[in-house]
């Protein structure tokens, strides 16, 4: 299981454009994508815009993005870049 820890930099947090961009990329991946807050909480489905909005990640909070399988490292790198983008 690969994972990336990323601090969300966008002022709006992982909402609106960052959330939509993240989920759009996650949905293209063949494997499951899980997203959790670093400090507790169950992981949610990274391919669900509802789940990501409800996770309510604010600017400055850190998330852990996980995936496994062929190509998961590349997907994780791309998702981490989206989540970290200001």
């Amino acid at each position: 299981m690969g994972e990336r820890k990323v601090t969300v930099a966008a002022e709006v947090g992982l909402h609106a454009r960052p959330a939509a961009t993240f989920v759009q990329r996650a949905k293209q991946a063949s494997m499951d994508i899980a997203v959790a807050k670093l400090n507790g909480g169950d992981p949610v489905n990274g391919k669900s815009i509802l789940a990501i909005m409800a996770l309510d990640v604010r600017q400055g909070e850190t998330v852990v993005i996980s995936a496994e399988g062929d190509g998961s490292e590349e997907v994780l790198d791309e998702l981490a870049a989206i989540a970290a983008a200001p």
Partner: protein
Amino acid sequence: MTTVLAPVGGEAVGLAAVPDPVFSAGMVGLGTAIDPLRGPGAAVAPIAGKIVKMHPHAYVVVGDDGKGVLVHLGIDTVQLRGEGFRALAAEGDRVRAGQPVVAWDPAVIEAGGRSPVCPVVALDAVSGSLTGLAVGDVRVGDALFRWE
């Protein structure tokens, strides 16, 4: 099947008419948008369920079947940091369809240089699952679309 109600009265214009590509390109999801009547009023819950996200300018209601609907009051209104919006319900509250959730005035949003158009998005809806999309004049609480 869920019937999604118009959270505000106005003219149903479709997501393509929203001046924000995140919505107009369908990145957030399928749905429509309403160009709201100007003047003070209250945006209502589009479905019955629980308010899982309550921002001053946007809210998400999730029904008992797990379907979530996002209502976004105006474009770029996150920048207002709540000014011009008054919550009438709280995150975690259960609401009935049509229950007032946020008091606001689209005319004030427009006067501030932002579009008051309201995207209404069926979150995670798959292609073809929305039918009966209203076009043109809708009153608050009218059926806006059906979600299979």
